[in-house]
């Protein structure tokens, strides 16, 4: 009997997960469908850009600076063994532009802005603001979800680019200013090795994908949260866990497509 119960439990969970994915897909479709309205009222998007983009600036800049500085230090220690300290700029720039910039910025964005979005929408639902909107014939997806979605999609590439730029500056501070790697070779080797289309643009594409996925997960978890205190806290946790995993897995897939054997 216990066996049957376990099997039933597993089946129930699998069906539930697939069900949720289906609902999330419909949610994504509706968000795109109703976003025409939010572009007509662009100040709604601007407001969300402030809360998800501008408010994430400090954490992105500080984290980027330190990640770049660590890359500079570690890279120097390793490259010194082969006498190629001059390649430090290449290492820092490629590491940041291709991988660390989009990925870490997206992870920070998920935990800083994504969790806030989930909690906000979950609480709106718990306090029946969303039902009130529906009563007034205001479409909550067009009014609440779509502006947040586009704000996330717009701000993510900008944040990732900022992260990479500040990180390269951090690598420059440690490598050139502190340790004393030759400044000319730091920049010139970097420029020779980093390709605009291959590296910079692919990084932007990565961060666009991450922005879409993270924002979508955060909004869906908020919209789908049980309207209780416990439900909202669980949804917030799920946002951070799911979007972090999604970022790292998608990063592998995107890297495999973009940089295969190049």
């Amino acid at each position: 009997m216990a066996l049957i119960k376990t099997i039933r439990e597993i089946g129930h969970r699998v069906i539930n997960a697939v069900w949720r994915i289906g609902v999330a897909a419909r949610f994504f479709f509706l968000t795109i469908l109703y976003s025409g309205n939010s572009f007509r009222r662009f100040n709604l998007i601007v407001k969300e850009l402030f809360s998800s983009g501008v408010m994430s600036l400090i954490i992105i800049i500080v984290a980027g600076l330190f990640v770049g500085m660590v890359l500079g230090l570690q890279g120097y220690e390793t490259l010194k063994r082969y006498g190629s300290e001059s390649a430090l700029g290449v290492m820092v720039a490629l590491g940041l532009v291709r991988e660390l910039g989009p990925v870490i910025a997206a992870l920070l964005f998920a935990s800083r802005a994504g969790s806030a979005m989930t909690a906000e929408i979950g609480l709106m639902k718990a306090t029946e603001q969303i039902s009130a909107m529906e009563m007034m014939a205001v479409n909550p997806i067009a009014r609440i979800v779509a502006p947040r979605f586009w704000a996330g999609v717009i701000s993510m590439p900008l944040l990732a680019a900022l992260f990479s730029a500040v990180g390269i500056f951090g690598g420059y501070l440690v490598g050139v200013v502190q340790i004393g790697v030759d400044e000319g070779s730091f920049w010139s080797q970097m420029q020779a090795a980093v390709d605009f289309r291959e590296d910079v643009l692919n990084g932007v594409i990565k961060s666009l994908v991450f922005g879409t996925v993270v924002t979508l997960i955060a909004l869906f978890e908020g919209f789908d949260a049980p309207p209780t205190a416990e439900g909202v806290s669980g949804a917030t946790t799920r946002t951070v866990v799911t979007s972090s995993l999604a970022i790292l897995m998608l990063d592998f897939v995107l890297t495999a497509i973009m940089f295969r054997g190049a």
Partner: protein
Amino acid sequence: MERTTLDLWVGMFVVAGVASLVFLAMKVGNLGTYNMSNTYELHAYFSNVGGLKPKASIKDAGVLVGRVVSINLDTNRYEADVVMHIDKRYQFPKDTFANILTSGLLGEQYIGLMPGGDTEMLKNGDRIKQTQSAMVLEDLISKFMFSKAAEPAATK
């Protein structure tokens, strides 16, 4: 439209993001350094390209004049057919010599051009006749070993 401080902040955020994208493109990437819009194509056969890769640089007297576009194996000759794009500003004589060189001991490989004295210039689609293959470290070592072994015993 009334303007709010919120707009100012968002504007600053967007400007900072776009500025860092431009920084990545121009200062970190190669968009600002070398514009290869006006080029002509040259071909060359090499019996061994070593570690030469597409996008490797082509230099004359140390100055970057072009890029390698593609490397294919020509099955009629069993030699590597290297396609190069050279900047239109630089013209080279018909008897130019193409070498595959290495920057530093273990650095990346590039093609070094050595212009000859011909008065006629290479045109789009022409082929560089004289080439020298890449130096392969293993060949060099084995040559050295054989020559050592072949040396008369008198040196001992």
